[in-house]
Structure formats: C-alpha cells, structure tokens
C-alpha cells in the first residue's frame, strides 16, 4: 500500500494506482474527457493535470502512478488557470448552442466550463473550419464541430466492441473522427451505439424526434430483455415514455450494449403494440379484458381436456426468463403438450 496526500487529505491506496483514481477514492473528481477505465490511455485532453510537490511541471493524473509520500494538489491556482485556458480554447471552436443541444445537462464540456468559469464570449479565436454533420447511421449522428477529440469513441469501438469502425483523419485543427469514406455502413459499423454512450459532449447523439431535457427525465435501471447476457441498462423516461436507453457501466456489460438493447425500444411506445389481450369473436380478433381472455382459455381447456395435440402455446421473447419458464411449465404440466414455442428470433 502507498500513502500519499491529495489536497491535504491523507489516503492509502494500492500500488500502481493512478493519482486520478486515488483522488476519486477521496471523492475528489479530477476533470477528464479522455480517460476511461475500460480504454487504453490517450492522455490527450490534458484536463486531469495536477501539481505535485517537488516538480514545477503540471502532470496528467490519469497516467501518473502514486508514490509514497507524494503530495498532490488538484486545485492549485496554476491548475485552475491552465484548466480554464484549456476549456476556453475548446469553447473557442465550439458552437454556442447549448440551449438547443440534446446533450445539455449531461455534457462534460458544459459542466467543466461552469466549474472553471469559462466565459460565454470566447476569449480566443481558433481557425477551425466547420465540418458538416454526418447522419449516415440510422440511429445516431455525429457533429464534428462539437467533437473535442477525446478519442473515446474511437477506442471503445476498436478496443471494446472489436469493430474498429472509427479513426482519426487529417491532423492539427483539421482532425476529425472519421469512418469508412465518411459513411458508417462502409465502416462496418454495427450500430451498437457504444460510441454515443461514451461521448462526453453532444458530438455523437441519437437521432430522435423526442424533445426532452436531460434534467426532466427519470432513469429506470433494468436488465435488457433481448438475450441471456443480462446487460444492465437505464431506461430514460420522459413523461411516461422511454426516449433513450443508456448503458450502465456497473453491469457485466460494462457500459456496452448491442444495437437491440441500445436502440430497439421503440416497440414499447409503438401504436401497433398490443396493450390488451385479443380474443377472436366472429372470426375476428378484438380487444378484450384479461378476465375475458382467461375465461376463454379456461373454457377451451375444459372443452379439449385430454386431447393434448389440440393445444399450442406461443410466448414472447420480450417476456422475462421467469415468465417464459412458467409458461412452458403450465403447457407441459397442465395442458400436457409439448407444442410450445416463442418468438426469440431477433
């Protein structure tokens, strides 16, 4: 174990811990755009700089390993000035449209700019040329003008998703996140949306017709119902409607989802979705109450009892495992039939 002091607080952490993580253990959140536990170190946003006693350099804490007796200051005057300049530089090339941006309220650039008093009127002028939005993906779009080049999307796609659809193109200020001929399909993208999940700004955002503000939603933690992995997710609910699915980083999926978990939620609020049981009356399926439906099943059961081949049960992959278990149990044990199937074909 290593003892060190961060902002006057003593802490003891494991060897090889980074200063950034040690600080986190103390509840001190050092700002960073590009650091992510799941990804290789890029050390490029330079926001996680700290002052360490004994050196007058500013060091990035995301790749700085703790040392015995280290005295770290994450809030010194020097650090704050550098951070304010760093953020002001980004702001200088960033569209000033937080009021319209779908990321507002959850945007790290916005949060840090608030924390470090970045002025709304840019104090610097950088010679950035606007790059058009790219909407070639069905589910999301990328706005390079809002990209701060943290490279998280690039790294998650290649290091975690294993697709490697994204990369950087050009250099200097002309650098942008690129993908096969600037078309997501050419890039082999599987539309898992992991890049969208990690993007700290509004550069990568879902396409959506829903208008909502991020402080106006409820988040419901749940398990994805599509397959057996059990990915953890948060349903983002606005006025009773699911408007987005966020991946949860604590589950075994560690913040990743597949295209179904991330984007195939529209059926929930779809107008064609069945919300009541249907019962066939005069050759036509019509909406009914559960009482009616159960009565019908009961009646048919008594009518054909003993003729096991007369029964068939069909359930849905949208039900939970437990529900499906009970369903097949009932058909096998009560209706005495093996005619049972479900629609898990997605």
């Amino acid at each position, binding site marked *: 174990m290593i003892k060190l002091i961060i902002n006057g607080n003593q802490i003891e952490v494991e060897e090889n811990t980074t200063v950034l993580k040690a600080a986190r253990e103390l509840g001190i959140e050092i700002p960073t755009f590009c650091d992510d536990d799941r990804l290789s170190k890029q050390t490029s946003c*330079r926001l996680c700089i700290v002052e360490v006693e004994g050196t007058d350099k500013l060091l990035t804490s995301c790749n700085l390993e703790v040392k015995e007796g280290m005295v770290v200051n994450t809030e010194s005057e020097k650090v704050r000035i550098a951070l304010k300049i760093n953020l002001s*530089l980004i702001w200088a090339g960033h569209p000033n449209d937080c009021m319209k941006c779908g990321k507002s309220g959850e945007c790290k650039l916005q949060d840090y700019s608030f924390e470090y008093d970045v002025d709304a009127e840019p104090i*610097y002028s950088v010679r950035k040329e606007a790059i058009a939005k790219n909407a070639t993906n069905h589910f999301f779009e990328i706005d390079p003008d809002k990209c701060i080049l943290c490279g998280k999307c690039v790294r998650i796609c290649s290091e975690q998703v294993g697709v490697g659809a994204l990369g950087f193109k050009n250099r200097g200020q002309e650098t942008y996140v690129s993908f096969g001929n600037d078309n997501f399909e050419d890039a082999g993208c599987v539309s898992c949306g992991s890049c969208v999940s990690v993007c700290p700004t509004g550069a990568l955002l879902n396409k959506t017709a829903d208008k909502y503000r991020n402080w106006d939603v409820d988040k419901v933690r749940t398990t994805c119902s599509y397959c057996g992995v059990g990915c953890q997710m948060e349903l983002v609910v606005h006025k009773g409607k699911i408007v987005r699915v966020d991946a949860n980083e604590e589950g075994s999926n560690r913040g990743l989802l597949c295209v179904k978990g991330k984007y195939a939620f529209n059926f929930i609020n779809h107008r064609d979705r069945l919300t009541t049981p249907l019962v066939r009356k005069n050759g036509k399926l019509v909406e009914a109450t559960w009482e009616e439906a159960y009565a019908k099943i009961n009646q048919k059961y008594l009518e054909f009892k003993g003729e096991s081949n007369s029964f068939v049960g069909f359930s849905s992959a949208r039900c939970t495992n437990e529900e499906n278990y009970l369903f097949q149990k009932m058909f096998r044990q009560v209706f005495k039939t093996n005619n049972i199937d479900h629609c898990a074909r997605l």
Partner: protein
Amino acid sequence: MIKSKAELMKKYQQTKDKIENRKGKIDLKKREVLVCTGTGCMSSKSKKIVANLEEAIAELNLDVEVHGTGCLGFCEKGPIVKIMPDDTFYSQVKVSEAKEIVTEHLLNNRIYTKKLYVNPLTKQKVEKTKDIPFYDNQVRIALRNCGFINAESIDEYIGTKGYQALELSLTKSPDEVIEVVKASGLRGRGGGGFPTGLKWSFAKNNTGQKYILCNADEGDPGAFMDRSILEGDPHAIIEAMAIGGYAIGANYGYVYVRAEYPHAVERLNIAIEQARAEGLLGENIFGTEFSYDMEIRLGAGAFVCGEETALIASIEGDRGMPKTKPPFPANKGLWDAPTIINNVETYAVIPQIILNGAEWFKKIGTEKSSGTKVFALGGKVKNTGLIEVPMGITLRKIIEEIGGGVTKGREFKAVLTGGPSGGCLTKDHLDEIVDFDRLTELGSMMGSGGMIVLDDFNCMVDIAKFYMDFIVDESCGKCTPCREGTAAIHKMLADITDGKATIADLVELEKLCKMVKSTSLCGLGQTAPNPVLSTLRYFKDEYLEHIEEKRCAAGVCDGLISELFITDKCIGCTLCAKNCPVSCIAGERKELHVIEKDKCILCKDCFTRCPVGAIITR
C-alpha cells in the same frame, strides 16, 4: 566478403593510398575531381557537370577520376568542383564550364581563375579550400567524409578507416562500448541533448528482442544536416547503428527518412546493399556471434514524426501521433520492444569516438557539451551553408567569420536557433558560446542545428508568427493545448501584426504560451511557444511598437503600412526611382527623392533597395 579483421585491413590497404593521395599526404601523381552531388548542388545540375567532366576527360584520355561526393557545406557557392590533391576550389561552376576546367586545369595545368572563390574582405581570388575563411573555424567530425569521399563507394569509406570501429567494438564487450560512448560525453544531436551512452545503457539492461532506430526525419524548416550526412557518408550511419545494435543487443535497425529526401534514400540504399554484399550487415559479422541488419522506412514528412514515439508509431504503420512518456522507448518502443533511437549526426560521430577514444572527443567542445555540432547556417549571412564547429565557439565567430557577416551591409538583429522549438538571441549575445546548456539558459535551444540570421529587415513578431503558422500546420491534433492553443497564439500574433491588438492581449498571449508549454503532451507542443516567449523576452519593444504605435519598423507587417516615406537621409542615388514598378518616385541625382503617395502600391521595393536606409514605412 569481409569476414575478419585481416580481410578488412586488406581492403583498407588497397584504397588507403588513394585517400592519402587525395588528402595530399602522399603523392601518387594522380589527380581526382570531386563534385558535390548533394541535393543542393544537384539542383544546380551538378550531376550533369560530373557527366561533362567525365566526357571531357575521356576525350583527352586523361587518367583522372571524377567522384560525386556529398555536401561540401558552402552551398551558397555551389555547384562546387574540387581538384585533388591540389585542393583547388571552384565555385558556382556551370555545366558549360566543365570542359574548360578539364582543359585548363587538368590538361594545361593552369588554374581556371574564372571560377575561383573571391574572398569578399580582401577581394582576392582564393585558390585552395583551406584558405577560404568559411572553413577556417570548422572542425569536421560528423562531416569528415562529406564532400571528400565518393558517397556511393564502400571502398572509399573503408579507405578512411571505415568499419574499423565496428570491428574494434566487436572485440570489446557491449558494456565496454557503452562505457566509451558515455565517457566521450556525447549528447544527442537531435535536439534534446540527452547523453547517448546513458540512453544506450537503459536499453542494454532490458532483455529480449530490441531495435535500434535512426531518426532522419529532419523536420526543422531550413535544416539539412542529416540529409547531407546521409547523402555524403551513408556508411558511417550504417556502421554506427551496427555498433549501437551490438552495444544494446539489437539485431535489427530502421532508418526513418522523410520521403522528400529521395537522394539520401537512394544513397543509403546503395550503401546498405554494399554493406550486405560485404557481409558487414547480416549474419555473424566479422565472424562473430553478432548479427545485424537494417532497412529504411519512409516518412511522409510530418514534423511531429521526428518525435520519437510518433516516429515509432509511424514505423508500426499507425498514425504518426506521439504517446506520453514513460514508458520511454528504451524500455518499451518499437512493437513494445526496448528501442534506441538516435539522430543521424549522433550516429555519424560514433565510429570516430570508438576509433579515437573518448578522451579525444571530450577534448573538443565544452565540459558538458563535448564534440562538435553541425549547423545549417542560413538567413541573412553572406555565406550560407552547412558548417561543423566545435561546441563552445561563440556566435560571433559563426556569424561573422564563418558566415562572413550579415548580407549587403545590413545590421545584424538576431539569430534563431532550434527552429520552431527554439528562440532568438540578440547582438548582446554574440560573444556567448554555443553549447546545449548555455543556449537553453539564454531562452533558446540547440535544437537539431538550424541557425538563421536575421537583419533589421526582419520583424521579430512576424518571425514568431511564421513559426507558429508552421506549428499550427504540423500539430498532430492529439492534445488540446497544442491543437487549439497554437492556433489561438497564431491568431493573437496576427492581430498584433495587423495592428488590432491591445496591451491586455499581450498579457493573455504570454499566459497562453505558458499554458501550452506546460500542458502539451509531447515536445512539439511543449516547445512550440518558445519563439514567441523568447522574442517577447528580447524584443518586447518591437511588440509594443506594433501595438501602441501601430508601426513595424522592419517594414514587414503589411497590415501596419499605409505609406512609404523618404527621409532626408536620402543621398539621391536614384536606385529607388529606377526600380519603382509604377514610377512614382521623383527626384534628381544627388537630391532628396519623393514618393507620390497616391500612386504608390506599397510594394516596398524601394524600401529594401535603399543603400542608406532613408526610406521608412509608416
């Protein structure tokens, strides 16, 4: 094949006399013609000169060999043709004059005076290279073979004791070799000045597959030291890398050269092939256990690819983007293997250190910066070119004696070292010595060897802006401070040169420069503000003049020039009036001239022409 010391020495004996004769140390009664076929002279058709010389010699049936050599340094006076062992130096030779040189000098034994160099001080024609002041204060170690041997002949290299240092190293233990390099005090010539022997020992202490790399990216604008060494003495680099490979335990090397150096690549390739054919590269070199081979990797010419981690990424086939250190390449470099990377010039002196001993090298230069340094001397000096001087020489000696002083009698203003990572020094520093530490103390740096002299026609703000413009284009874009910060600095400088800045902006500028310096990821960003900070340190007045008086005394910043005006310093020489493209200058000979303001197109032709500096901008 050369598989033993005896075989090497045999080959050495075969060409040694020819080399000694060329030096004039023995007399074989045989003359040779050396023609610089480095990139500089080649662009003035020196290859054609070689062909014409050979043709004329053949016609006359003379027993004279013509050799294409590397750069002789005095590029200002190229193409250069030398007759050896006479040491006759013909400058600015034209293709059409090759034949006359042959008949005059080689056939009739008369000096072809038309093409002799004229000493600008004495106005005398100078016959021999050794009497040319440009070469006076130079000590050639890295460049010792450049311009002296046929760069495409391994035999000639061996004739200058080539590959003997490798042979000698293989009789020592790797630790002993490293000790010699350490004791010599050699520091990396790529800019950082890190002790080479120490760096080698880091890699030596690691195990497993290792690599040795040569950094020939040379991205500093205006610098061409490394190119010239590769073009003039490619075998020295091969030999040194093999020595390094042996010392650290690497069996493979790469030379990373920018693709814009086709001639250097060609010569290096020829040399690698020759060394392989002789068994000096490959398995069991000199019959020992040591095997080593190497190849060239071409870079696409990005400045940042000279940064070692970016260079390694580029060799690996990735984007040339730097990574944070640690880990240092000596521990985790190319394909994660321990890797040593050194500059071309660093390698070029290593065989000499091994052969002549650490003490010999240490005696040259200063205590903490031993040896020599090659500079590409350029800008407003009379003699531009490639020079090699002992560390510790004064700036004055370089600029006034070797460089022949500032051009056209203008006034010296500053000298820039370290290129886009360095800074400027002023006339108050002319008697300062040149070595790693002193230059850093003065707020500039050694850099890789660009040295640009400025006169009073250069605006320091404009120079800072020029370098920042370069950096904005060359920043890899990975980290925020460099990517955005340098662009913001550039814009602030542009505001100053356009007369749009305030004093408050100057404070912000300095603050921003310090932030970029202290928080950028790699050396490129960390040093990028240096030209601004150092011009601010020594030429703050000039910044203030731009901001407060909206005036650029050097007449460079167009945004601040609304009028050219002839002061009463005018001597009426009529030079300005004769050359004005719109004929808006009036005046009689020996009388004050006047510019007709409304007609003047502000081309500044008169301003740069006036011999007495009577014309000012305002």
